[in-house]
């Protein structure tokens, strides 16, 4: 038995919004792999829950008319990894969420929950930052879209307003087209572990594959919320593909990241693996894009 005070189950997005307004103190539960665990730990003991688990309309990946990739907020990690649109256009996201927890967690955990809990270590978040994802929120006044960087307010806190639920994550076409990316999760174990550092890089090369048109890098656990390292991105933009560029790019991430000491790892160690992971993920992305080093 879970120590919950009341359970309200939404059958539609409109019902979920109505329940949110009627029970502003209630916590939203999607897959439950964070919420139920925290209830067991006593952190959310005695709370009211609004379950959105039954909202099948929020499951699945589709492409909108303008080429925007739309990932319903309740799409599970294993669904994302298997999805043909993700595999074709945004394989790095499937690769990243395939490193969350273990297989059973990936069957229940959702991308909406992974972003709404506001934690910096979320395996999906760095890739979503690196692709300028847009968060779609539905509330009493309709739908609102917000860049993911603004959605995160501080550790554990996202901009989910009165009556709202997150309904989708959108990746614009001009963000993902012709890009290739790679995600590196640094953790102590291969399964059932939280990232010590998560690094997501993607590159877009020129037609002759000799120049980096655009490079993106974002980290989880390099600050209180996921973040982009724009100094590194600017250092690589327009530069010829080379091993030296990978080094320059990787060193430049230090200007933007701000990891902390925690029991998982020391700040200095995180700085070190951030540089090394950025370099490796950059080289792998360039290779996937057909670049020759």
């Amino acid at each position, binding site marked *: 038995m879970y120590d919950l005070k009341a359970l309200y189950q939404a059958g539609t997005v409109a019902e979920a919004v109505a329940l949110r307004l009627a029970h502003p103190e209630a916590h939203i539960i999607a897959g439950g792999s964070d919420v139920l665990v925290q209830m067991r*730990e006593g952190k959310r003991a005695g709370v009211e829950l609004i379950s959105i688990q039954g909202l099948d309309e929020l499951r699945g990946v589709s492409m909108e008319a303008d080429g925007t990739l739309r990932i319903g907020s309740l799409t599970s990690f294993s669904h994302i990894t298997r999805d043909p649109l993700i595999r074709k256009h945004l394989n790095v996201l499937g690769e990243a969420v395939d490193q969350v927890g273990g297989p059973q967690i990936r069957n229940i955990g959702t991308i909406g929950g992974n972003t709404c809990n506001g934690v910096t270590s979320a395996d999906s978040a760095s890739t979503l930052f690196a692709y300028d994802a847009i968060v779609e929120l539905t509330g009493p006044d309709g739908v609102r879209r917000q860049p993911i960087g603004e959605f995160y307010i501080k550790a554990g806190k996202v901009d989910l307003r009165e009556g709202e639920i997150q309904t989708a994550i959108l990746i614009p076409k001009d963000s993902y087209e012709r890009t290739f990316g790679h995600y590196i999760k640094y953790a102590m174990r291969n399964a059932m572990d939280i990232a010590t550092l998560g690094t997501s890089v993607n590159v877009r090369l020129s037609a002759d594959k000799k120049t980096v048109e655009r490079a993106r890098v974002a980290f989880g656990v390099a600050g209180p919320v996921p973040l982009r390292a724009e100094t590194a991105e600017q250092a690589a933009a327009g530069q010829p593909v080379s091993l030296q560029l990978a080094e320059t790019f990787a060193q430049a991430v230090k200007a933007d990241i701000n990891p902390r000491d925690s029991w998982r790892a020391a700040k200095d160690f995180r700085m070190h693996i951030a540089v090394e992971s950025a370099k490796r993920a950059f080289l792998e992305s360039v290779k996937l894009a057909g670049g020759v080093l």
Partner: protein
Amino acid sequence: MENHVIQYQTVHFNLNGKDTERTVDVRASLTDMLREDYRMTSVKKGCEVGECGACTVLIDGKAFNSCIYLAVWAEGKNIRTLEGLLGPNGELSDIQQAFVDEAAIQCGFCTPGFVLTAVEILESGQEYTDEELRKLLSGHLCRCTGYENILRAVKTTMYRRLGKPMPAE
């Protein structure tokens, strides 16, 4: 005084091939309901926070930790537990027999969960490398066997079902 009303809800689902319904306390996990209302004691309470995999069941063919799944979410689902693998006279299924043959069991607490994840793997009809199998099985903890025999039990059954010889190790 806390205004606390105990809520019950009736859940309709299919358990091991039979349609069923139960009125459950909304606070129950799926593990609670399967063990206490249905006596499906193969569903083990291990960590109860989704880390050890001992409570794994198949929901619509996929492995889930039933300890972090609300019982009321079972509405309309097809749920399978280890009990559903047995033949009409209690015969073991091929994967269960393989666990016995490979000595993939010591205390047995993790076994039902491992077997159900193995069923999901086997029913995919795909051939996996050892590395892939290890990853697919990584949501379970076993403190006795060291995993090698479990991996071998799944692998031998996979090749048997695929009708292919097992590659030499």
